[in-house]
């Protein structure tokens, strides 16, 4: 039995971050490997913890923090562990991916600098990067709303700095924009948390159910929903997403998808699970918002020519699928929606990072100027197609069974609320065609056809293995979960299956 297994997954990235910071000039270019291997270790821990949860065990770790009201208790159950595991795998993959990518960004932004400055930049990226797994896993495991708020607030910090130091053209302004949006969401979340405290008497998520049926529950749900919808970039809160995704260094753009998607987990953990009866009133409006966002986001993506904005806009559309599933409020749709969220973050990490590879190799962002790159970059093309398949829900990617389970629930809910529910369900399913259209259209524009003449003389080739292999492994995880979805669904069902919803 490994002691403090959940705490370790949060603390190890912190220690690694401090280690990199303190020894930055000594470890130098090995900082990326230190970050990667520390995350590999926590991935191992999470696999062990998930295996225990798979056999029905609920892992609880109690740590006092500030009095009896604010504790730092951690909960590893069927809901938190698979989410944490997949997120950590992606963080690990991206840490290794970043080893070469960050070198390229430093060169692009700062040009020729002395070794000391260069190492400062290089190591800064990795000690900041480790803030992501820390915050993500914190959000997943904490049992307390204040602690959750804390970790949700920690997330924008590495995001802000990495964006400002390593982002693209308009990086400082967009970093600020991202931060302000994060504060907007956080304020709403905090307001909801404060109301909960005054009604329930503590911040424990496990006691939230005592608020059920109380008039204040409506306002709590509304406030927290606004916070989460802003994070998920649901229309009309979507305007920040294309900017932020487009200007970020691509090596963390995959984590931005996680940053937005984790709101789906919070929604299930904080609202749906304890307050499902009060949540019902929001079900239909949320489903309508989700449908609008799916179509709006897809059309927005279809219009993009910038390879980074393309991936960003598609996130808007894809996140709405999870929202549709969760708000349909059936066991199938909630489990499917959560599973879809995991499939999506894997697919999006692959797609975003491949977009990064394209920019890294060609130096251009306009997809129309790429064309015919398939023969020159076969592995990159494979990765992009893999990402396209994951987003469009093609077997054997995990999004296929996720989509099936989720829509089973959405249709179940729809038939019970004929005609509006059924119309939304049918339109929701048909809207996936837009995803297939824009993803596979991008494959054609970027990789097929004759090679663009402006690229013919360049030394364009696939990236180093340290960039492509982590993404191929992430794709393999998606395939494993697609072939054997029981690994995740059984875990979700241990928690969500207990809900008294249809």
């Amino acid at each position, binding site marked *: 039995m490994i002691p403090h297994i959940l705490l370790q997954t949060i603390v190890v990235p912190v220690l690694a971050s401090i280690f990199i910071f303190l020894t930055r000039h000594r470890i130098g270019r090995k900082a990326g490997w230190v970050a990667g291997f520390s995350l590999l270790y926590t991935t191992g821990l999470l696999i062990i913890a998930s295996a225990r949860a798979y056999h029905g065990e609920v892992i609880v770790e109690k740590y006092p923090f500030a009095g009896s009201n604010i504790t730092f208790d951690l909960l590893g159950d069927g809901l938190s562990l698979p989410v944490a595991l997949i997120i950590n795998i992606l963080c690990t993959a991206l840490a290794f991916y970043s080893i070469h990518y960050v070198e390229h960004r430093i060169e692009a932004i700062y040009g020729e600098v002395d070794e000391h400055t260069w190492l400062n930049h290089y190591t800064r990226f990795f000690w900041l990067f480790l803030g992501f797994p820390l915050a993500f896993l914190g959000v997943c495991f904490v049992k307390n709303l204040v602690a959750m708020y804390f970790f949700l607030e920690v997330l924008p910090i590495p995001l802000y700095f990495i964006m400002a130091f390593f982002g693209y053209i308009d990086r400082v302004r967009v970093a600020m924009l991202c931060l302000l949006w994060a504060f907007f969401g956080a304020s709403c979340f905090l307001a909801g948390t404060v109301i909960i405290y005054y009604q329930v008497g503590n911040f424990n998520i496990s006691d939230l159910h005592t608020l059920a049926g109380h008039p204040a529950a409506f306002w709590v749900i509304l406030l927290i929903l606004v916070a989460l919808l802003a994070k998920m970039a649901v229309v009309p809160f979507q305007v920040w997403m294309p900017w932020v995704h487009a200007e970020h260094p691509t090596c963390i753009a995959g984590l931005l998808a996680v940053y937005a998607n984790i709101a789906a987990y919070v929604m299930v953990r904080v609202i749906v699970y304890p307050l499902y009866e009060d949540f019902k009133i929001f079900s239909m409006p949320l489903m309508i918002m989700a449908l609008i966002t799916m179509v709006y986001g897809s059309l927005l993506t279809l219009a993009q020519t910038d390879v980074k904005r393309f991936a960003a806009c598609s996130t808007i559309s894809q996140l709405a699928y999870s929202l549709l599933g969760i708000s349909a409020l059936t066991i199938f749709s909630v489990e499917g929606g959560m599973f879809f969220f995991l499939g999506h973050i894997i697919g999006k990490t692959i797609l975003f990072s491949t977009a990064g590879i394209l920019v890294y190799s060609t130096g251009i962002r306009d997809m129309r100027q790429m064309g015919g790159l398939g023969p020159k970059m076969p592995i990159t093309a494979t990765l992009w197609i893999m990402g396209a398949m994951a987003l469009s829900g093609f077997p054997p990617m995990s999004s296929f069974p996720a989509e099936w389970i989720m829509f089973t629930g959405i249709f179940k809910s729809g*038939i019970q609320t004929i005609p509006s529910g059924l119309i939304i369900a049918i339109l929701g399913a048909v809207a996936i065609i837009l995803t297939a259209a824009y993803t596979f259209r991008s494959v054609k524009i970027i990789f097929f056809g004759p090679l663009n003449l402006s690229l013919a003389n360049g030394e364009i080739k696939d990236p180093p293995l340290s960039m492509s292999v982590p993404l191929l492994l992430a794709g393999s995880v998606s395939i494993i979960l697609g072939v054997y979805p*029981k690994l995740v669904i059984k875990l979700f069902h241990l928690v969500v299956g207990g809900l008294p919803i249809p």
Partner: protein
Amino acid sequence: MKFAWLCVLFPFIGVLSIPVLAKVHSKFRDFAAVFLPFLSALASLMLLPYLFNPESLPIESSVVWLSVPFVVEFGILVDPLSIILANVVAVISFIITVYCLGYMKGDPDITRFWTLVNLFIGSMLLLVLSNNFLLLFIGWKLVGLCSYALIGHYYKDEKKYWIGGPPPTKYASPTHCGLKALVVTSFGDLIMLGGILIIFFYSGTLNLHELIKTSSSWMPAMAETPGMIILVSFLLLAGPIGKSAQFPLHEWLPEAMAGPGPVSALIHAATMVKSGVYLVARLIPIFYYGYWVTGIGEASTFFTITAWVGVITAFVAATQGLVALELKKALAFSTVSQIGYMWIGLGVAGLSPSALVSGATSGIFHLLSHAVFKACLFLCAGSIIHAAHSIYMTEMGSMRKYMPLTWIFMLVAALSLMGLPPLPGFWSKDAILLSSLEAQAISIFVLAMVTVTLTSFYTTRLIGMVFYGPESMHVKHVKQAGGNPHEADRTMWGACAVLAGIIVLLGFLGPRVEHLLSAAFQSDLVGRLHLPVKHPENHSINYHLVVSVLSVLSVMLGALPAYFLYIVRKKDPRVLLNKFAILQILHGFFWRRWFIDGFYYKVFVDGALKLADFVADYLEDGFDNLVHRKFPDLITRKFHGVLIHFRTDTDVFFYNITYILIVFIGLLLVILW
């Protein structure tokens, strides 16, 4: 049962092993690519004895794949329908892979090609042998994905692989055609998913066998919601309509021949388009039970749509075949049209209790005979295009001089397509016409008979333009440039010869094969599922004879003018066209594909792109401007004097860091306090 599993597994083993073997030696790779489909075909043939003993069917074998939140089994279902389909898919696909050995020789992307072909075959076998909707849908989606990749095999889009034209008609690149196929068929798939999930809601099972067995309990429950069964019929049929290229989702198939020749043969004969027909046949018992046993009137919608979609498609596509200039496109239109015939058979099966067995039998019998003759036609077409260095029939002519064997094989297949006795196309088409007459669907029968004439005309025209008449200028140029149009590689004409042989054999055994299929379906639908049927009344007129005579007369009616125009060339068809205005109007209308394709591009493609631009340029930019510029401007203008001291939206990094620190320290203090 193990043969059924092996039948599915072998091509998937190919998918995994081909890329590995390619690294060892190309010969190993090529051998595996053909040998594994061969083993699959062998395994499917081992299932055939069950057809002679249908009482022992169905046999099911499955393992639990998913137990929560609902149970899904990964299983195989062996019944008459799946046995027939598995054999068609596996055997024809194997013959096509043999042809590929010659056709694809020297292709730089051969490893990818072989992998995808094996995946295509495996997915199709998974589709037809699966015992539940989820697994079927996995096969369904994979088939769509493979077709996308194989149609776009020449993904560099070199001009020599473009199809369409001649100017002013637009050309289309292979990758464009692949994308078109994927989007159009996926559209149908997703609508179908809705239908499947609604059925699952009412029935609580995805197992195909259980669905039929329990339909007496869930069908009435579904009928309690008015319009629900009609809705489900439309939703469920959208998938097969897309995959089988039926009206109104038929426009992708004519472009699907942008891929290599054998891929066209796979799509048109053995795999993709047959999946839709299979699914419709699979669903017949459910809706038949609903209509004829439970008395739910709405259930008949399923059959009405099927039959009418079939006959409209058969007619519309045949008219387009009359004017096609590209050899493979003419064959593609013919596929669309012939699949329409299969849909007629399956549709009329539910319109009358006396047509159940004959309708289902005729639809599937035509699927079988079409698979053989269409595979032969496409493979021969591939050889001819190779030899003539052109995709246009107008640039061929007199090719029998150079390719006598191909001429014979293609002629046999073409005569079968026309429906000339005693070839299998005659027997199967006749069976469809007869069952539509038995179901009293007179208008469908008449339109189908007219289409027989059209089929006969365009097939004779095709043979005439390719093999008869004077040699085209293009062929002369090819010869002058040192080209030598000649018979194809041994593996290529050998595959065509085998198919032609099967056509002849199937022709002689036609009535026996029909009887065998009929007995199998009788045992399955009536004996096992206890679906009520009525034996056809004894009419004073012999319907069988009438249909046969009318059918042969229709064939003659179409073949004779085409014979005089394109084979013996008594008159120049262009002179006739210029002489009659009505012919010009009709020609233009058919050439532009009834304006359907253009309409789709205008509305769906251009429309979606314009809408996307509107969303991006007006809605998103406008909203972004409002939220990120106007709103902050408003605040800063109003409170400029105060805010100037706290300005954060600036490119000065120091300000931003200070701001964050202040906010975070403040928040931390608030929380701890």
